[in-house]
């Protein structure tokens, strides 16, 4: 059976009708004056899930997280955590802990003091606090930094202290606001895997807010793509990438070539789309219901497009002739920009799987662009 890409782990309670959601947002709306930050949003998150809220800044993802932490109250609708309505419960009584984007480490306390802070609030006995702090320091590999103050640590170390501090209380849910935003690229990649390991090891539910799609795709079991206070799609990273449900999601995640056209013929299993603007006819698998004459979108990822100097066997559909206009070489892959006769630029990517190529494509080469009927996504929304 064919499946959409690789998946992280065999964990899919959202497909199980018996599974009870752990966190539910039910028709939640949040307004700040005239501005609607979160608009009638419903969402369920399952126990032990690594859930990502992904969107551009101002899409309401941070507000959603802050409502879960208790810093904001929904204007309407309700939030349930483990079956309990959270309305009116102040942040200090909620079984969730948040890792702040700025880390919010207490500058006047040592690393130890920061980690112990939440435990002291719970009135935990001193010897248990000491044991838990030692355990946390070991978990984030900062044993030798226990007595340092936050300003004596590097960015990556601070991030780990912040993590240890909010994990120390063994919350039911860990909320992470742009957890890797302040780290440089290399450290970010390492830390992504550390966070995933930690989440598995502790068996916690993680809700992470991020604007970085790579980060969300790497770490999350499911991603909610948000725009203007609404959830556009909730799905696994592979589904969001390979089967986006709308033009917005297709365009937001990754690179895409988007075509706008009208359905000309529908045969069982296949749909033909006329794209007069780009002088191309697209034939694609009928993954969505549509009727002849309907205007639809078609999205295809650059890596699913083939380039060749040779004319393909069938040039009537899914093929176009053009000139190589730009080449971006990234090392692991190369992205070609092809200008079709209509003037439209098509992006096509190819993996540099071998080190040497005979007669590689170069600037100004005339090439054929073509793709299979299952390579792209038919979009009606």
């Amino acid at each position: 059976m064919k499946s959409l890409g690789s998946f992280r782990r065999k964990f899919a309670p959202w497909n199980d009708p018996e599974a009870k959601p752990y966190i539910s947002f039910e028709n939640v709306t949040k307004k700040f004056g005239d501005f609607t930050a979160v608009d009638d949003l419903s969402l369920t998150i399952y126990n032990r899930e690594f859930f990502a809220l992904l969107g551009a800044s101002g899409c309401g993802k941070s507000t959603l997280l802050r409502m879960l932490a208790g810093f904001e109250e929904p204007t309407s609708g309700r939030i349930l955590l483990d079956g309990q309505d959270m309305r009116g419960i102040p942040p200090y009584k909620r079984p969730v802990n948040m890792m702040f984007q700025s880390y919010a480490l207490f500058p006047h306390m040592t690393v130890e003091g920061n980690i112990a802070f939440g435990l002291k609030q719970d009135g935990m006995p001193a010897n248990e606090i000491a044991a838990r702090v030692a355990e946390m320091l070991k978990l984030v590999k900062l044993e030798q930094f226990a007595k340092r103050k936050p300003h004596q640590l590097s960015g990556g170390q601070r991030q780990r202290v912040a993590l240890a501090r909010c994990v120390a209380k063994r919350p039911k849910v860990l909320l992470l606001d742009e957890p890797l935003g302040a780290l440089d690229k290399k450290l970010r990649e390492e830390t992504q895997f550390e966070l995933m390991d930690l989440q598995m090891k502790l068996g916690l539910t993680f809700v992470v807010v991020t604007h970085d799609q790579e980060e969300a795709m790497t770490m999350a079991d499911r991603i909610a793509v948000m725009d203007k206070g609404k959830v556009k799609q909730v799905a696994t990273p592979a589904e969001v990438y390979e089967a986006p449900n709308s033009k917005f999601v297709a365009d937001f995640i990754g690179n895409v070539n988007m075509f706008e056209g009208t359905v000309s013929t529908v045969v069982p299993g296949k749909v033909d789309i006329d794209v007069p603007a780009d002088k191309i006819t697209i034939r694609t698998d009928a993954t969505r219901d549509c009727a002849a004459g309907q205007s639809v979108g078609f999205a295809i990822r650059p890596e699913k497009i083939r380039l060749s100097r040779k004319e393909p066997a069938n040039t009537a559909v899914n093929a176009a002739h053009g000139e190589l206009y730009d080449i971006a070489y990234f090392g692991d892959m190369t992205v070609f920009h092809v200008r079709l006769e209509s003037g439209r630029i098509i992006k096509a990517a190819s993996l540099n799987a071998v080190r040497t190529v005979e007669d590689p494509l170069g600037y100004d080469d005339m090439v054929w662009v073509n793709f299979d009927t299952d390579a792209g996504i038919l979009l009606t929304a």
Partner: protein
Amino acid sequence: MQKLIASVVSRLVISIPYLWMLIFFLIPFIIVFKISLSQVTMAIPPYTPTIDIWAGWQGLVNSVSQFSWDNYTFLGSDPLYVKAYLSSVIIAAISTFLTLLVGYPIAYGMARAPATVRSTLLMLVILPFWTSFLIRVYAWIGILKPEGLLNQFLMWANVIHTPLNILNTNTAVLIGIVYSYLPFLVLPIYSTLEKMDYSLVEAAEDLGCPPITAFWKITFPLSLPGVVAGCFLVFIPAVGEFVIPDLLGGSETLMIGKTLWNEFSANRDWPLSSAVAVVLLALLVVPIVLFQRSEAKAQESEK
């Protein structure tokens, strides 16, 4: 050559504050100190010896040989001065504490106010400086006197039936100092609170702190540099305060600034009042040094 000019210019720029301190602080201090070693006489100027630079080396030696520490021994032997110093320090300490009680909530409220009104609030704190200090203190006489605004209001509200006697007591002096020095305390505390990251308080609440605990464990300790700066800015001038005890205080109010003024103008005892001033300065150097050390420490931890 250019390097040389640049280095000379930079030295010149640095030397300006030193020059300022030399001309307006050190030289006057030396003059005051010299007078404090002299004796009072009925003459112009009212002290002896005077240094006559035309008298040459021998004249100078003659003058210096007449200097004595008599005024300082007198200060120590008469309990009036010791009491005045002590009472000044106590009044200054109490009023600093009261100013803190009033000023901290004001600074906190300002720092937590919406950003759009913050500059207006800041303006309102600074605004009283636009009126003469003396006039503002006089205005308090109108408020505090037996038939003044405060008593009229309290009697109208039926809180009291006979006017309170506040004017010309230490209470009036405390009110005057708290009122006059409030901005000096509010501004530094406001500036530390305003640049504090509010997510620290949210983090504390998230980790299980009710808001009041979060204030005492996070906000207050982090605002301490501002609190210390503000307290010194109130305490140091309050110790030597003269106008407020003179206008609002009564016969019981014993403050060193007032004593100094009496010695200087009523008794025309310049040498003794100079000695009072020198001792006052020595007394204040201690908190000033403490203040500078705390400032340096605060700067260190910010790095």
